[in-house]
C-alpha cells in the first residue's frame, strides 16, 4: 500500500531459501555463585519466600473448595479456583526480572503471577509512595481492613495489603482490589504493575500489545508481559497479536523516535495441558511451543524454551528479553515449561493424565528443588527455611481470617443500592480538546481533501428547494471526517487505525487526506486482524491512551466478537470503574454486497451491557455525535450506513457548523411533527420514513418522526411524549426483526405508556433471513411503501389502501418454521 515500499518482481522471484536459526531449549546453565553475585543472598531467599506465599495462598483456596475449611476456618467459597500449584517459579522468576512500572497481563490462572508481581513491586517501591498507593486505593477501605483486622500477623503492611486485596477480590468483597467485580479470574492492581487477568484464554495477548504500544508512544519505558498458557496457542487472537506486535511498518515506516516495535513479551507458562487437552502431542502441532516464534518474524520473536521449575532460569530469560524489548528489538516469546500439580479446577479428577506422569514430576517441584539448592549453597539453613514456611502460613492465615469475616469485609451492598453494579458500567466523563498537536505533518487547511470540504455548502438544500449534489454540499462522510480530524489534530494521545485507514483514506474515504497530516504512529494501516484491532485498542486505552478504530464492515464484528463483547464492553465494570476505556469503534453497515456485507448488527451490540451505541443518520448528527464519542471516556460503537455517506444536510437550516461542536448522547431528534402516528427510526430508516410520511399525509395521517440517534443511552422521554399525543408507535430499523433492539423499545413503551396507546406498537425491520444481493435489497430493508402498508394496515384500517409491499406475513406460522 505505501508507495515508498515497492514490491520488486526481480527480487521477489529470485531463487533463495527462507532461513531459520536454532531456538534454544533449556540453555540456562545455573551457576549459583554467579546468581549470588547477581542478586545477592537476600533476594534469592525472598524468591523462596514468595513461592511459598503463592503455594500457601493457593493451598488455602484449594482447602476451602475441597473441604470447606482451612486451618480451622470454615468458609464456603462458590467461585472459581484455577490454581497454579507447581508453576510458582515461573511467576516469581518473571517478577524478579521486572520493575514496578513493567506491566503483566494474565489469564484465568494468574493468582500466583499477581502475587509475585505485587510482592516484588512492594519491595521495590519507596515507602512513601507505597503508603500513598495504599491510602488512595478505594478511599482507604482496604488499608483499613488490613490495619484493623489483619494486623502484624499479616507481615509487612504492603504485603498484607496485597494479599488481602487479592483474596477479598477472589471472595467478591467490597474491599477487593476491584470491589469484587472481577473475582478470581480477573483480579489485578495496576499500581503494582499487575494489569487485568483474563478469563478468556489468550485474551490478554492483544491487550498487552496495545498497552505496549501505549508504553512505546508515551515513552514510559515499561515492558508489557502477556502471561498466557500453552493452550492459548490454539486461539486466533494470539497469532493476530504476535503479528501485530511484529509488523514491519514499525521499523520501516514509522518516523524516529517511534520506529521500534512495541515492547511486549509473549510469555507462555507451558504446563502441557489446556484444561484436559494435552497440547504437546495431542491438540497442538508445535512439538516445542517456542517453535511458533519462527513463524512470526525474521527475529523468530527471539524465542526460547526455559525451565519453569527454576526461578533463576526464568529470571535470567525474562531479564534478557526485557533488555531486548527496552532497546526496541521486540516482540519476544518465552516458552516456560513447568508442571501444574493442581487440577485445572477443583473438580478436575485428572482423567487425562497418568499417575506415573504426575509422580515423575513430583521430583521437579520448583519449591523443594529451589529450597534444596539454596540450602546446598549455604544461602539459607534448614531451620531458617522451616521458620520461613511457618511464617508464611501464619501470614496467609491472618489474611484469610480477616477476609472470610463478612462483618469486616462485606460485599458491595446491593440491597441498599440495587443498581450499584449497573452504575459501574460507564463513567460519563468527557475531556476537553487541547491545543493543536505538535507532531502534525502539515496544516490541514493546506491539504486538498480538506480544501474540497471547505469549498462546499454547509446546508444541502438550495434556495429553490432542490437538494445539492454530494460534490457541492457537506456530506455525512465529510462531517465524520471533520470531527475525527479535529480530535486527531488536537489530542496527541489519540491514535487511529484499521484496515486501509492511512493511504487509502479509509475504505469509504472518511480518512481522506489524513495521511498527509497525521504522522504514521498515530494513523496506520492494521492487518486484517479484526480481533487484534479491537484487543490492542482495549490495551492502549486501559493503559492511558485513546483509540479510534475501524472495522470496515459491521459484519466483521463477528471476527472481533470476544474483543468487543467480553473485553471492550466489560473491563470498566469488572474493574469497578478503576479502568477507563476511551475507545471509539467505527463500523459501517453495507449495502449491495449481499448476506455477509449488509447487516445492521446494532442489536447484537446493544444486547451486551457496556458499550455506548450510536447510529447517526444526518451529517450534523454524524459530526456532533462523533465528537462526543471521541471526547468521552467510555467505549463507544459508532455505526455508519454506507447508503448515507453521500447524504447532505437537509434538516438543520444553518447547515453543519464548520466549527467543532458536540451533540449529547441520549437525546432523540424530532425530525417531522405530526399527531397521528409516531415513527421512531434507527439509522438510515429515517429517510424512507420521511418519504412515507409524505404519502401518509396525502391520506390525512400526519406522522411524528423521531430519529433515535443513540441506542445506548436511549431517550425514552422524547418517544413517550410523542406517543402521548399520537397513541401509536412504529419503530423502523434495518436490523432483522427477531431480537432487534426495536423490540426492546416497543416492549418498554408498552409498559411505560400502556394507557396512551391505541394499538400495539409495530416493529418494522429486516425479515429474519439473509440480506439478499443488490437487485433484491429493496425487499429486505424497509421501504416507504412497507412503512405505509404497516401504518395503514395496523393503525388505520379504515383508510386501508392496496398494499404495495410484500410484508403481509403470518408471523407465528413463520416462527414455527424457524424464520
Amino acid at each position: 500500500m505505501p508507495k515508498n515500499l515497492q514490491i520488486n518482481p526481480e527480487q521477489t522471484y529470485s531463487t533463495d531459501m527462507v532461513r531459520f536459526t536454532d531456538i534454544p531449549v533449556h540453555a540456562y546453565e545455573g551457576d549459583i555463585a554467579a546468581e549470588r553475585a547477581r542478586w545477592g543472598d537476600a533476594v534469592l531467599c525472598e524468591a523462596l519466600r514468595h513461592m511459598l506465599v503463592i503455594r500457601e495462598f493457593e493451598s488455602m483456596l484449594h482447602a476451602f473448595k475441597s473441604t470447606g475449611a482451612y486451618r480451622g476456618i470454615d468458609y464456603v467459597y462458590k467461585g472459581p479456583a484455577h490454581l497454579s500449584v507447581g508453576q510458582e517459579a515461573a511467576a516469581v522468576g518473571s517478577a524478579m526480572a521486572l520493575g514496578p512500572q513493567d506491566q503483566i497481563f494474565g489469564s484465568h490462572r494468574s493468582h500466583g503471577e499477581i502475587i509475585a508481581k505485587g510482592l516484588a513491586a512492594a519491595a521495590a517501591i519507596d515507602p512513601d509512595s507505597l503508603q500513598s498507593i495504599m491510602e488512595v486505593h478505594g478511599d482507604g477501605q482496604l488499608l483499613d481492613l488490613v490495619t484493623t483486622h489483619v494486623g502484624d500477623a499479616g507481615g509487612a503492611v504492603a504485603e498484607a495489603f496485597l494479599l488481602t486485596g487479592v483474596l477479598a477480590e477472589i471472595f467478591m468483597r467490597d474491599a477487593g482490589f476491584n470491589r469484587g467485580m472481577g473475582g478470581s479470574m480477573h483480579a489485578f492492581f495496576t499500581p503494582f504493575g499487575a494489569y487485568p487477568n483474563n478469563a478468556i484464554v489468550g485474551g490478554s495477548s492483544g491487550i498487552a500489545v496495545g498497552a505496549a504500544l501505549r508504553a512505546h508512544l508515551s515513552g514510559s519505558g515499561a515492558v508489557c508481559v502477556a502471561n498466557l498458557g500453552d493452550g492459548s496457542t490454539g486461539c486466533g487472537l494470539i497469532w493476530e497479536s504476535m503479528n501485530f506486535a511484529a509488523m514491519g511498518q514499525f521499523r520501516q515506516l514509522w518516523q524516529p523516535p517511534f520506529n521500534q516495535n512495541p515492547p511486549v513479551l509473549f510469555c507462555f507458562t507451558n504446563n502441557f495441558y489446556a484444561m484436559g487437552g494435552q497440547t504437546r502431542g495431542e491438540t497442538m502441532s508445535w512439538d516445542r511451543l517456542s517453535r511458533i516464534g519462527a513463524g512470526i518474524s525474521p527475529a523468530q520473536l527471539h524465542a526460547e524454551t526455559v525451565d519453569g521449575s527454576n526461578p533463576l532460569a526464568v529470571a535470567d530469560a525474562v531479564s534478557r528479553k526485557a533488555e531486548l524489548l527496552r532497546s526496541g528489538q521486540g516482540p519476544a516469546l518465552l516458552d516456560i515449561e513447568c508442571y501444574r500439580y493442581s487440577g485445572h479446577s477443583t473438580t478436575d479428577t485428572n482423567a487425562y493424565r497418568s499417575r506415573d506422569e504426575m509422580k515423575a514430576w513430583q521430583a521437579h517441584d520448583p519449591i523443594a528443588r529451589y529450597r534444596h539448592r539454596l540450602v546446598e549453597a549455604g544461602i539459607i539453613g534448614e531451620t531458617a527455611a522451616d521458620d520461613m514456611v511457618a511464617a508464611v502460613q501464619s501470614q496467609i492465615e491472618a489474611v484469610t481470617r480477616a477476609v472470610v469475616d463478612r462483618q469486616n469485609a462485606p460485599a458491595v451492598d446491593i440491597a441498599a443500592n440495587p443498581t450499584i453494579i449497573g452504575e459501574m458500567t460507564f463513567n460519563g466523563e468527557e475531556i476537553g480538546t487541547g491545543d493543536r498537536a505538535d507532531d502534525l505533518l502539515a496544516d490541514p487547511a493546506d491539504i486538498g481533501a480538506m480544501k474540497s470540504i471547505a469549498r462546499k455548502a454547509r446546508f444541502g438544500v438550495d434556495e429553490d428547494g432542490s437538494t445539492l449534489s454530494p460534490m457541492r454540499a457537506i456530506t455525512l462522510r465529510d462531517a465524520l471526517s471533520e470531527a475525527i480530524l479535529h480530535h486527531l489534530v488536537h489530542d496527541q494521545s489519540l491514535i487511529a487505525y484499521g484496515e486501509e485507514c492511512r493511504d487509502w483514506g479509509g475504505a469509504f474515504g472518511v480518512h481522506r487526506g489524513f495521511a498527509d497530516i497525521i504522522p504514521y504512529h498515530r494513523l496506520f494501516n492494521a492487518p486484517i486482524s479484526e480481533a487484534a484491532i479491537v484487543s490492542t485498542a482495549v490495551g492502549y486505552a486501559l493503559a492511558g491512551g485513546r483509540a479510534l478504530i475501524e472495522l470496515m464492515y459491521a459484519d466483521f464484528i463477528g471476527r472481533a466478537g470476544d474483543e468487543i463483547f467480553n473485553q471492550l464492553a466489560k473491563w470498566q465494570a469488572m474493574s469497578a470503574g478503576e479502568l477507563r476505556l476511551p475507545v471509539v469503534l467505527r463500523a459501517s453497515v453495507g449495502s449491495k454486497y449481499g448476506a455477509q456485507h449488509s447487516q445492521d448488527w446494532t442489536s447484537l451490540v446493544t444486547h451486551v451491557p457496556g458499550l455506548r451505541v450510536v447510529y447517526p443518520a444526518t451529517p450534523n448528527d454524524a459530526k456532533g455525535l462523533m465528537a462526543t464519542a471521541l471526547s468521552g471516556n467510555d467505549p463507544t460503537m459508532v455505526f455508519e450506513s454506507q447508503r448515507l455517506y453521500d447524504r447532505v444536510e437537509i434538516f438543520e437550516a444553518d447547515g453543519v457548523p464548520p466549527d467543532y461542536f458536540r451533540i449529547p448522547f441520549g437525546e432523540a431528534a424530532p425530525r417531522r411533527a405530526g399527531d397521528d402516528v409516531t415513527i421512531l427510526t434507527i439509522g438510515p430508516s429515517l429517510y424512507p420514513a420521511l418519504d412515507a410520511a409524505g404519502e401518509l399525509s396525502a391520506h390525512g395521517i400526519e406522522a411524528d418522526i423521531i430519529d433515535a440517534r443513540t441506542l445506548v443511552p436511549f431517550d425514552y422521554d422524547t418517544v413517550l411524549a410523542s406517543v402521548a399525543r399520537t397513541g401509536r408507535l412504529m419503530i423502523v430499523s434495518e436490523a432483522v426483526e427477531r431480537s432487534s433492539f426495536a423490540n426492546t423499545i416497543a416492549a418498554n413503551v408498552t409498559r411505560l405508556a400502556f394507557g396512551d396507546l391505541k394499538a400495539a406498537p409495530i416493529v418494522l425491520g429486516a425479515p429474519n433471513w439473509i440480506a439478499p444481493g443488490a437487485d433484491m435489497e429493496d425487499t429486505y430493508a424497509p421501504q416507504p411503501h412497507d412503512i405505509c402498508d404497516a401504518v395503514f394496515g395496523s393503525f388505520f384500517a379504515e383508510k386501508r389502501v392496496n398494499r404495495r409491499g410484500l410484508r403481509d406475513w403470518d408471523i407465528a406460522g413463520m416462527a414455527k418454521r424457524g424464520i
Partner: protein
Amino acid sequence: MATEILVPQLGNEVTEAEVTEWVASAGDDVAAGEVVVVISTTKAALEIEAPCDGKLAEIRIGEGELTEVGAVLGVIE
C-alpha cells in the same frame, strides 16, 4: 495535433468530480503516463496521467472547480 485530457468514467454511480490539483502548469512539457492533474470524487482522489507526450497547452478546468465525467480538463499539443 491536440489531445484532450478527459475526466474518466469513475464507476457507474459517479457523475461529478472536482479538480483538486493541477500537477503540471500550462506551458509545461509533459510525457505520456506522467500525472498532470488530480481529481476527486466524494469518496476518493484520482491521479490523471497525460495521454501522450507534448506540451500542456491549455487548462480548461481550474483547481477547486467541479466538472463532470467526460469533460475536457485540459489539452496537450
